[in-house]
C-alpha cells in the first residue's frame, strides 16, 4: 500500500510487532494498539501464545484440511489440481447489533431481487416505467428469453444467494456484488468453524457465538419447499444435487453439502428425461427426480436448449422444467440480476418494489455505457477498479492502483470496444483484520460473504465466509487468485461483546 503505514508495537508480546494500519477500517483496532471491545479477549489469547505455538496450531489445522480433503481445484495450473483452501486461524468477530442490520439488509435485498426477476420475466413493469432501461436487460448475456412467461414455484427465482459485503473506511457495510447464480464457498464456512472449535474451544465458548452447523438442514428444507407443481409426492420430493463432476473447482463442496443433507450428488449422465419427466439411473431401475439443486451454469444445463456442446447437462431438461415437472434451484436466468451493470440500479429496484430505502448501500458504480461515467472513468483509470459485467471469481478485472500502463491501455481499448460489458468502481479500501502469517499477526484485507436462503421463508445463517487477501496489500480475495478464508463469529448477545477478558 502506498498510504503511510503506522507500525504499532504491542508491549506484551511479539505477536503484533508487524501489525500495520492504514486508512482502511481495521476490524480489530479502533486506533493503533487499542483493540475494539469485541476483539479484546482474542488479543489477550494471542498475546499469551508464542510465535512457535501459533505456527504449530496453524500446521495442525492445515493438516486437518489436507487429510479431510478440503480442497479446491485451480484451473490451468499444471500439477492440477487439488489445493487446500488456505485457512486463517484468527476469527473475524461481528457484534450482534452490526449483524442484525446486515441480516435485515440482506433479506430486503433478496426479496426485491426476486420480485425484480418475476417482473422482468413477466409483465416487465419496471422496464415499462423506465426505472431500469429496457436495453440494459435485453442486452445482458444472462437474460434468458426462454424464461419469459414461465412460472417458477413460489415465484422464487433465487433460493440460494451469496452476497459479497465489504466494510468501507467509515465502518459501514456495503454490497459489492450479488451472486445469484451458483454461489459457492459455504462448505469452507462450515469447515473453518469445525477447525476453529477444535483450536480455540475455550475462547469460542466464552465468546458466545451463534452456531452455523444447521446450514445444510436449512438448505434442504428450503429446497424441499420448492417442490414443483407436478410432483409425485408433494411432501416428499426427491431432491438431488447436480454437479459438473469431480474436476469442477467446487466439487468438494458439492459432495460435502449432499452428504450433510443426505441427498444424492448426480452428474448429467445419471439423469435422463422421458416424456418431460426427469429420472435418475439407479441399480433398481429409473427413479423420478423432483427438485434439482443445480451447481451447473445455465449454459450447460441442457444441450438441446442451451450450449449444444455441453456434456455436463441433461438433454430435454428445459422442457421438463417448463412443463412444471421439476424444480431447478436457482431458477434459470437469474444471472441477469447480478449483472454488474444491473447492480448499479439496485437502490432504485428496492425502492420500486418495496417502497423502502436500501438498508445496505451499493458501492458507487460507473456504467461504461453512460458517456459522462465513461469519460470520468477513462480519465481516472489508475484509481478505479474495472470489471466485466458478467464475470465472477475475480476474473476479467483491472485494479487501477496496482496496474501497469499497458494493462490500463488494454482495458481502455476493451471498454471503448464494448462499453455495455464494463463497469467501474472507485478502488475500495476493504477493511483489514488480523491474520496469522507465519507465526506472526499481520493485517490483511477481507470481505464477507453471507449465505441467504429463500423458500417458504428467509434463512440466513449467522456469519458467512470471510475471505482474506493473503498477499500483503492485495485487495483480491478470490480463492482462484490467492485468497484464503477465516471463520466468522457472530456474537449472540448485544451486551457481551468482549468475552471473558473484557472487564
Amino acid at each position: 500500500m502506498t498510504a503511510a503505514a503506522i507500525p504499532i508495537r504491542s508491549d506484551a508480546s511479539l505477536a503484533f510487532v508487524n501489525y500495520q494500519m492504514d486508512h482502511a477500517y481495521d476490524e480489530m483496532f479502533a486506533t493503533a494498539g487499542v483493540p475494539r471491545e469485541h476483539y479484546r479477549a482474542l488479543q489477550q489469547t494471542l498475546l499469551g501464545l508464542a510465535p512457535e505455538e501459533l505456527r504449530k496450531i496453524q500446521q495442525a489445522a492445515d493438516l486437518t484440511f489436507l487429510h479431510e480433503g478440503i480442497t479446491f481445484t485451480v484451473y490451468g495450473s499444471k500439477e492440477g489440481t487439488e489445493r487446500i483452501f488456505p485457512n486463517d486461524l484468527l476469527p473475524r468477530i461481528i457484534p450482534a447489533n452490526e449483524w442484525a442490520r446486515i441480516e435485515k439488509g440482506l433479506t430486503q435485498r433478496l426479496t426485491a431481487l426476486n420480485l425484480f426477476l418475476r417482473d422482468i420475466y413477466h409483465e416487465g413493469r419496471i422496464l415499462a416505467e423506465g426505472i431500469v432501461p429496457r436495453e440494459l436487460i435485453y442486452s445482458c448475456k444472462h437474460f434468458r428469453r426462454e424464461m419469459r412467461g414461465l412460472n417458477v414455484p413460489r415465484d422464487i427465482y433465487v433460493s440460494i444467494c451469496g452476497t459479497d459485503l465489504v466494510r468501507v473506511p467509515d465502518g459501514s457495510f456495503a454490497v459489492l456484488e450479488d451472486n445469484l447464480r451458483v454461489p459457492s464457498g459455504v462448505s469452507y464456512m462450515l469447515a473453518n468453524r469445525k477447525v476453529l472449535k477444535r483450536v480455540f474451544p475455550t475462547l469460542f465458548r466464552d465468546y458466545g457465538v451463534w452456531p452455523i452447523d444447521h446450514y445444510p438442514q436449512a438448505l434442504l428444507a428450503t429446497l424441499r419447499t420448492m417442490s414443483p407443481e407436478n410432483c409425485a409426492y408433494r411432501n416428499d420430493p426427491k431432491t438431488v444435487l447436480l454437479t459438473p463432476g469431480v474436476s469442477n473447482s467446487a466439487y468438494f463442496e458439492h459432495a460435502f453439502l449432499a452428504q450433510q443433507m443426505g441427498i444424492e450428488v448426480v452428474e448429467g449422465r445419471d439423469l435422463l428425461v422421458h416424456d418431460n419427466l426427469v429420472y435418475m439411473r439407479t441399480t433398481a431401475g429409473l427413479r423420478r427426480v423432483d427438485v434439482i439443486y443445480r451447481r451447473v451454469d445455465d449454459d450447460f444445463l441442457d444441450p438441446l436448449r442451451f450450449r449444444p456442446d455441453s456434456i455436463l447437462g441433461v438433454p430435454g431438461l428445459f422442457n421438463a422444467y417448463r412443463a412444471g415437472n421439476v424444480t431447478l434451484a436457482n431458477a434459470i436466468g437469474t444471472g441477469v440480476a447480478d449483472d454488474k451493470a444491473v447492480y448499479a440500479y439496485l437502490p432504485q429496484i428496492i425502492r420500486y418494489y418495496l417502497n423502502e430505502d436500501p438498508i445496505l448501500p451499493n458501492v458507487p458504480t460507473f456504467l461504461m455505457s453512460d458517456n459522462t461515467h465513461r469519460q470520468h472513468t477513462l480519465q481516472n483509470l489508475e484509481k478505479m477498479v474495472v470489471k466485466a459485467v458478467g464475470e465472477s471469481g475475480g476474473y476479467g478485472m483491472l485494479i487501477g492502483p496496482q496496474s501497469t500502463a499497458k494493462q490500463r491501455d488494454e482495458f481502455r481499448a476493451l471498454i471503448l470496444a464494448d462499453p455495455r460489458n464494463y463497469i467501474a468502481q472507485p478502488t475500495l479500501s476493504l477493511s483489514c483484520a488480523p491474520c496469522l502469517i507465519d507465526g506472526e499477526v499481520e493485517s490483511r484485507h477481507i470481505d464477507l460473504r453471507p449465505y441467504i436462503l429463500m423458500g417458504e421463508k428467509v434463512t440466513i445463517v449467522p456469519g458467512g465466509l470471510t475471505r482474506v487477501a493473503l498477499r500483503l496489500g492485495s485487495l483480491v480475495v478470490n480463492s482462484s487468485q490467492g485468497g484464503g478464508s477465516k471463520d466468522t463469529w457472530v456474537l449472540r448477545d448485544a451486551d457481551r461483546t468482549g468475552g471473558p477478558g473484557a472487564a
Partner: protein
Amino acid sequence: MRPPRNFYVKTFKREAGMLSRVAENLYWMSRYLERAEHTARLLDVELQLWLDQSPEVGAGRWRFLVDALQVAGVQGRLDPLQLAETLVFSRANGSSIVSCMSAARENLRHVREQCNSEMWEQLNKLYLQVIDRRAEEGWILNSHELFRAVQEGAHLFQGVTDATMSHGEGWQYIQLGRYVERTHTLAALMDTHFRRAAAATDLPVDSAEYLSWVGLLRGCAAFEAYCKAQTAEIRPLRVAEFLLLNPELPHSVRFSVDRMNAALHVIGDLTERREKLPARIAGRLRAKLSFSQIEEIMEEGVGTYLENIRGECAEIHAAIHQIYFDYAIDTELAS
C-alpha cells in the same frame, strides 16, 4: 396420542436402489484397494523369501511374482529395483500399488458424499503415504514398512467401513468388489504356483520346496491358520485343499465366493430386480466349490479348475455391470 398404525412404514419407506454410477464407483474402489493389498502382501512375502535364497532361485521368484500378479509387458532379466518400480510406483502399470491406490481414491472421491468422512480420511491418508515414497537404490530391502502400511491401511479401511457405514446396498457393492477381486487374484496366484510346482501329493515337501509353499500360504495370509489346522508340516494336497475349499479362511477361494454370493443375494433383494443373472452365476460357482473334493480337482487338473473359476469370475463381473450399472434405458422404460 399414538401414531397411526402404518406410520413407520410410510415415513421410513426405504427406496429401492442407489445411483448406478455410485454403485460402480464403490465396487471399483474396493477392487483396486484389494488389489493394492494383495500386491503389497505378495511383495512383502517374496522379499522375506529372497533374503533366504540363492541368487538364481531368487531371480526365478521375481518372474513368478510378475506372472502371479499378471503384469503384462515385463520381459527379460529382472532386477529388484526395476521390478519394484513396476509393481509399486509405475503409473504405466495400472495394477502397481500406486496406480491402484490412486484409482481407489479417485473412485471414492467421485462418491465422497456416499461414504463416511472417516472412510475418506482413512483412504486419503493411506494414499498420501504411498505416493510420498520413491524407488531408490537399496530401496527394496527397506520397503517392508511400506508394504506393511498398505496392508494395515487396507485392513483399517475395511474396519472403519464395517464399523461406520450402514450395511446397506452401497456397503454390499464394497463387499462384492473386494471378493470378486480376491477370488480372481487368488486363482491367479495359485494357478501360477501349481503350474511350477511338482504334482501336489499328500506327502510332506522337502526343504528345497518348503519355502515356496510357505510363500504361497503367506501370500494368502494363511500360513498361521494352516499351521493351526494342519500343523507346520507342509503337504501340497492339504495346502491346495485349504486354500481352495476351506469355508472359514478369509483368503480362500471358497470363502471369497461365498461372500460374493451373499452380497449378490442381498443386492438382488434390495433392488427388487427380477433379473438376477449375477447371483445365478455366483450360486453355481458356490455350489461347485461347496461340493468339490480336492482329489477330484487334482484329477481334473488344478490348472483347469482354477482357470474355470477365473472365467466365471469374469462372467459375474460382466453380469453385474450389465444388470446394475449400465442397463439399456429402453427396456427399463418399457417395464
